[in-house]
């Protein structure tokens, strides 16, 4: 594996290999507190065309835990704002000798283009491309689900996972649906029809429009952020109404099975898709998701560029 662009490129065995590697890396670094020499002398470029503080610092920290050099290249205040194309940026980074490009872009397919256009010798790690995918977030979520509901297991057979809210704009949802389904979980997508993409029939998930009806069967519930910055159409009447139908509050959390975990990819809109009480409650694994995201990013970096030099 040279690039990680989409979870759909991962077989079940690859995914668990990444999760096991993440587990072992976490153990070896004592929860990320120790520095490993593994990627010493390697250069990881964070190429961010969209703002994302949490994803960027997670990748940065993952690379630094493994002793890689990290260069941050953000579109704002760089040659990109002067009109440089993706291709020219890639050629420049290649000439500078990057071993890995972590790319976040607003256009679906940007990461794939970067990886396969022949501009680069480096590995490409997709950190979110438009509405398409965000594979390391989904891998971190799978890590979290496994840790809580299936420790050590090599499949998610028999688990039911609900993904609630704005699936239309969410690459996190897309990656999670395909990844969790590939591991054997039953995925139920729940939201207002206006926020579910057209053509979901081919996706490996069930669709529900009533959150209350589905709550008792969910082993894990993943609340998606209402992406106010992308709400340039009319998708629902008001935030209050959204919250009444699809927000996770205490009453709803009590209907979940005893063992169920509550997830959110962050950043949260407290009071809209999830109440503060539930977000900070005992079932919430939201901060663990952040920690686990770091672990799987270290694992992906080790597996993609830890070995034999990928550059010709």
């Amino acid at each position, binding site marked *: 594996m040279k690039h990680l662009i989409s979870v759909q490129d991962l077989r079940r065995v690859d995914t668990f290999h990444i999760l096991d*590697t993440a587990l*072992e890396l976490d153990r*070896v670094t004592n929860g990320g507190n120790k520095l490993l*020499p*593994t990627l010493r002398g390697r250069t990881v470029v964070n190429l961010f065309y969209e703002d994302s503080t949490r994803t960027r610092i997670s990748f940065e920290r993952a690379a630094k835990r493994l002793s890689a050099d990290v260069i941050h290249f953000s579109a704002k205040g760089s040659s990109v704002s002067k009109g440089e194309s993706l291709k020219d940026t890639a050629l420049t980074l290649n000439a500078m000798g990057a071993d890995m490009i972590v790319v976040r872009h607003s256009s679906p397919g940007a990461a794939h283009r970067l990886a396969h256009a022949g501009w680069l010798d480096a590995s490409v790690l997709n950190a979110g491309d438009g509405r398409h995918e965000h594979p390391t977030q989904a891998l971190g979520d799978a890590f979290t689900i496994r840790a809580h509901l299936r420790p050590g297991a090599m499949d998610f057979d028999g688990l039911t996972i609900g993904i609630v809210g704005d699936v239309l704009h969410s690459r996190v949802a897309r990656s999670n649906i395909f990844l969790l389904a590939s591991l054997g979980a039953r995925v139920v997508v729940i939201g207002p029809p206006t926020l579910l993409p057209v053509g979901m029939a081919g996706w490996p998930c069930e669709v529900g429009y009533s959150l209350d009806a589905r709550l008792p069967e969910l082993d894990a519930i993943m609340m998606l952020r209402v992406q106010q910055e992308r709400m340039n159409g009319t998708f629902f009447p008001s935030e209050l109404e959204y919250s009444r139908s699809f927000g996770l509050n205490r009453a709803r959390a009590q209907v979940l099975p005893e063992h169920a975990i509550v997830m959110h990819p962050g950043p949260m809109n407290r009071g809209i898709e999830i109440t503060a009480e539930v977000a900070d409650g005992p079932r919430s694994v939201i901060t663990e998701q952040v920690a686990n995201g770091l672990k799987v990013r270290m694992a992906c970096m080790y*597996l*993609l560029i830890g*070995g034999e030099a990928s550059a010709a």
Partner: protein
Amino acid sequence: MTKPLSAGTTPHSETGSRVVADPDDISRALRRLAHQVVENVKDVSNVVMMGIPTRGVPLAARLAKNISEIEGVSIPVGSLDVTLFRDDLRMRPSKALEHTHIPPVGINGKIVILVDDVLFSGRTIRAALDALNEYGRPAVVQLAVLVDRGHRELPIRADYVGKNLPTSLSEKVLVQISEIDSVDQVVILSGEDST
């Protein structure tokens, strides 16, 4: 391995492999090593055995058991995966990580005995010393190996050697341990056999 191994010790032949140590040889060697450790180390209760995966781990457990039987103290056993610390990582595809386990007593101030199956270039042991550094500061670090096959690339030597085995670089030394391979033996594969 695709070819069946010949049973018993056979003279070196063109056609593949010869067994150079059988289960009795291995068990005798490990008993001797245990006695050497006891003789050499003043305070056996301060010893921690750290096996290097894969086959160093069961060897460490056996050695610890032998020492316990001689001295009547139980010896903590751990495992230390050195993959992330290797200097030749970039020369092969990234490898799956093995389990690292530091015994609850830790390694600070302990007499740590690293255990591996074969001592060859010494690079694994160099990486192991770096890895140990991450977990604490042992009072003493020693090395026990079942087989020393020579061809060192670094100034590293073993404190306890089960069997010195002069080899040529084209040969491969294969240690099989019953916990993993369902048989105890040491085999030399001649050059033509290796891929």
